[in-house]
């Protein structure tokens, strides 16, 4: 899969290929003050894209690690970070680490840029849907042939 196209958010880069969402006419005092302060008429969507995609990755990691722990006893033992809680401790802690690391990495990559949001939201939505399915025990059992 190709990486999303990114551009700097400086107004001078507003060329034809720039992927941004235009702002509608101002409606409130807060928005008016932003407009009056001479801010750019576009907003870099990179930070939001990074947060949304990382949330999708984090949710998917919960489902994937839960499936792996359920399917393989060795993985379940590996994920037992805290014995009273069992594999759930490692499954969720690892997923949180994956989520935060991916958020950090994506934010560094896209922090001041705008990206192709359609691609990011499609992938995030697929990951979110998969995470819902992977945490559903009958679907887990189906994947394992139980």
């Amino acid at each position, binding site marked *: 899969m190709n990486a999303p196209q990114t551009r700097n958010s400086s107004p001078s880069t507003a060329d034809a290929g720039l992927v941004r969402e235009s702002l509608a006419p101002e409606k409130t005092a807060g928005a008016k003050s932003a407009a009056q302060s001479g801010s750019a008429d576009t907003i870099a969507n990179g930070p939001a894209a990074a947060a949304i995609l990382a949330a999708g990755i984090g949710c998917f990691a919960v*489902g994937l690690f839960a499936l792996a722990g359920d399917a393989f006893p060795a993985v379940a033992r590996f994920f037992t970070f805290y014995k009273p809680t069992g594999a759930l401790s490692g499954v969720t802690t690892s997923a949180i680490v994956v989520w935060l690391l991916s958020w950090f990495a994506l934010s560094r990559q896209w922090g001041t840029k705008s990206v192709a949001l359609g691609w990011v939201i499609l992938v995030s939505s697929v990951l*979110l849907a998969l995470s819902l399915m992977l*945490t559903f025990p009958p679907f887990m059992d189906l994947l394992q042939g139980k």
Partner: protein
Amino acid sequence: MEISFRDLMTVLHGMGFGALFMLAFSGAIAELYRMTAPGGPSVPSPREHRLLMVYLVAMVVLAWAAVFSGAYIVYPWYRAVPPAGLADLSSYPKSLLMSSRDTSGWHSLGMEWKEHVAWLAPISITMVAYVFGKYGPALARLRQIRHAVLAFTVVAFIATGVAGAFGAFLNKYAPVRGGTAIHLMTGE
């Protein structure tokens, strides 16, 4: 009137954190939908934005408190392994449920779904709060981001609903009990 320590912690996890988080969704979804609805999204004023930000941060705190208290305080009591040959399994909820084909589904479907799907909620609502805080009133004019934020909020709501509903049923069929008795008041 007394309550056991484990009962108290279970109530704190389920009602104090989980149910309050669930209740807060009505306000969050209504406000986010109001901004997302086609035909004229309204831009919140800076004051409205600050209020919603405080609201969302409170939801984030409740969501993480609910999953961590569930996983690291209540769940170990629920899944504790009874000594071999013990006939009375009332202090071992998982084993009690699994001891009968009529109740085993509450664990194999209910608890196994609940213990994982619940974690989608804090991850999602943290992202929602961050995006809302980062973009402020301008979010009302970023259609794709608004829709994504709303979708994650709805999924978090569903995940919380699943976890909360099964939590309530599990506590009906195999309550987590025991620990020090806490005396609340003396009856007449």
